[in-house]
């Protein structure tokens, strides 16, 4: 269970690992925005080269990235089928009954596939090289302007980082509760909808009660250590842009310039 979505962080000493988490979040965000713009073969090529270089810089085995793509294989296949069958236009390549496969449909499907694969690779680069707590810190720092609108940014970041910290623990706990209930003869995968809805109750109640108990313990522990509010909390790690962050921004800018010149000039 530990290898899904969150907690995929792999410690390392590469250039990408050492970047400020804010740089990585901004970079990924800008990349995703640019990908929504991409609509020619050459733009996808430029983007693929950029992603390839970044992957090389992370010094992680390529297998990890391929593993990251595996869970979405079927979803991807589904999207491609949807694209191929629901895009109209001419010329028609194949024709069975009411289903028509058109050239624009196939091209669109390929574009959507490349777009998703590149976006997922880029966000995998971010999650592989950045611990979840740093992401929460970076979000707090990036959302600071919202403080003037009375949005409790510090509080939200604190909640997010604690929630992320306790996800693996709650997952283990779920597994334990499930095994305990199974050993009492509980079955989670048989019967009709009402029976299944009822079957999940003996799993959820201990999980919720455990979480409530932990929440109270943590609240007490925080108050004993003088916690008043998230706003005035001091930090152990203070985020600061360094030389390599400016270099990363420069290469992002260069990539954007090449991307747009390829998009509009070629």
């Amino acid at each position, binding site marked *: 269970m530990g290898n899904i979505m*969150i907690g995929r962080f792999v410690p390392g000493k590469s250039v990408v690992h050492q970047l400020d988490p804010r740089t990585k979040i901004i970079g990924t965000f800008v990349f995703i925005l640019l990908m929504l713009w991409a609509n020619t073969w050459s733009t996808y090529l430029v983007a693929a080269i950029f992603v390839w270089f970044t992957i090389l810089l992370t010094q992680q085995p390529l297998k990890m990235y391929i593993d990251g793509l595996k869970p979405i294989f079927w979803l991807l296949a589904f999207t491609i089928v949807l*694209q191929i069958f629901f895009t109209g236009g001419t010329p028609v390549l194949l024709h069975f009954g009411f289903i028509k496969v058109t050239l624009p449909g196939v091209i669109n499907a390929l574009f959507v596939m490349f777009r998703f694969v590149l976006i997922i690779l880029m966000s995998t680069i971010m999650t592989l090289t950045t611990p979840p707590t740093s992401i929460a810190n970076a979000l707090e720092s990036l959302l600071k302007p919202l403080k003037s609108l009375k949005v409790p940014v510090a509080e939200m970041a604190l909640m997010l980082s604690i929630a992320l910290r306790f996800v693996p623990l709650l997952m283990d706990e779920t597994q334990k509760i499930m095994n305990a209930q199974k050993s009492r003869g509980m079955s989670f995968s048989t019967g009709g909808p009402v029976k299944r809805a009822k079957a999940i109750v003996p799993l959820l109640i201990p999980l919720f009660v455990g979480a409530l108990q932990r929440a109270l313990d943590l609240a007490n522990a925080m108050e004993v250590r003088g916690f008043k509010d998230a706003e005035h909390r001091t930090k152990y790690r203070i985020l600061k842009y360094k030389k390599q962050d400016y270099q990363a921004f420069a290469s992002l800018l260069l990539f954007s310039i090449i991307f747009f010149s390829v998009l509009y000039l070629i």
Partner: protein
Amino acid sequence: MKNRKTIYLMITTFFMAIVLVQSIISWLGYLPLGAFVVGAAPTIVQFTVAIGAILVGPKYGAVLGGFWGLTTLYIAWTTPGSIGSLMFQNPFTALLPRVAVGLLIGFIYQRYFKNQHVGKQTVGLASLGVLAALINTVGVVILTTIGFSIMQTNFTGIPTHNILGWLIGIVWFNGIFEVITGAILVPLIAGALIPIAKRLNI
């Protein structure tokens, strides 16, 4: 005197963590009806939000709902291709119904059911479960329809004209199961949690 704010903050945080766990482990967040092929997967995360809102009130309930919305939005954008992601890439569809679930359930419970005795409260909690499912389903249907038919977009450029009816059908189909599940789950779980919370003086 304990600082109530810290306790509410931490309870909300742990419910956020449960929402995350439910979003990651699909069999804990969705009812396995065996009909995934057509995209039918009734979610039960709104009941986590509803139960959280019952414990901590409308303000933190709304935060919890908003967090669920953000999680859905994040998953819709980073794991595209599923039917849900077609709808929830629209930030309004992902966020508004979920915030409404936390806000309204928290408000209604505090206003009408909090001080009732246990027998009456069970009926109230069951109706809150039904209401949570309805707010989410109706909200998602309305916003998806608006997003697809008026704005002509699902934010990704995927052609939408043939799939709106299908999507709405799936959402209603899921909605029916969610209403039934809500009526069962919320009174059972909240009924177990509320006495504990009262004993711990929350």
